[in-house]
């Protein structure tokens, strides 16, 4: 399970930290969720539904951008924001390895506990 991970260097690890840290804020998740529906929005359109001021939205966009979760591009006076799915996918893959660790372990736990239950019943210590 872990051997494929050994190519993962520190760089990758720090990247994951940034991704998770960036995703740890509800405003930033709301921004991403909106971009998921309407990719390529301008910064002002993106900021509109939020109660916070534009500079605060810009700060969130900086964090998302540093984590590689979004890309900004400027055309004239308009900055448009696009979502980048790669870091999210990496974070997801990382979590899936833990998912698999436990789901596979728990399959065996079920088998073991159920055989112990059957054994206990045979010995007449039933419920």
């Amino acid at each position: 399970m872990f051997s494929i991970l050994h190519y993962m260097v520190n760089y990758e690890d720090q990247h994951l930290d940034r991704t998770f840290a960036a995703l740890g804020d509800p405003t930033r998740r709301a921004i991403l969720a909106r971009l998921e529906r309407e990719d390529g929005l301008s910064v002002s359109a993106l900021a509109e539904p939020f109660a916070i001021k534009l500079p605060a939205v810009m700060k969130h966009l900086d964090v998302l951008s540093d984590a590689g979760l979004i890309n900004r591009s400027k055309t004239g006076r308009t900055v448009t924001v696009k979502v980048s799915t790669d870091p999210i996918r990496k974070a997801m893959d990382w979590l899936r390895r833990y998912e698999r660790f436990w789901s596979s372990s728990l399959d065996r736990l079920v088998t073991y506990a159920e055989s112990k239950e059957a054994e206990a019943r045979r010995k007449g210590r039933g419920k």
Partner: protein
Amino acid sequence: MTSVIHIRRIAARPAIVFEALSTAEGITSWWGPDDLPVVSAQADPRVDGRFQVRFRTRDGQEHECAGQFLEVVRPERIVMSWEWTSGGEPGERERVSRLEMRLRAVDSGTELTLVHSALRDEASARSHERGWEGALDKLVRNFARH
């Protein structure tokens, strides 16, 4: 989302599931990602008692995780601290995560809820404050489909 949650129904009474989760003999029978026997397991299931599990994966490598029992409420609840002491996830070494197992008696036996959380320190601290796990899970899954 820095936690993983699994819920299983097991056709065995809670006391039996509890033993399987907390004793060395029990742990030896199920721990690890691959279908290979656990190399060694030790467990002292009382508050501040330690556990240590060493297992091998199909690639021949050995991994070891260890920690401490933080809460032991028989046969309802176990909370352990958890860290890789050898092998494991490179980025996870020296990070302590939290493993919580809750048992609930149901007609068919036991419903087990396993929560492995604080897998990433910074993000998980926030997750406790704001309870964002479900929302993010959905968000990430949506993106993962793209």
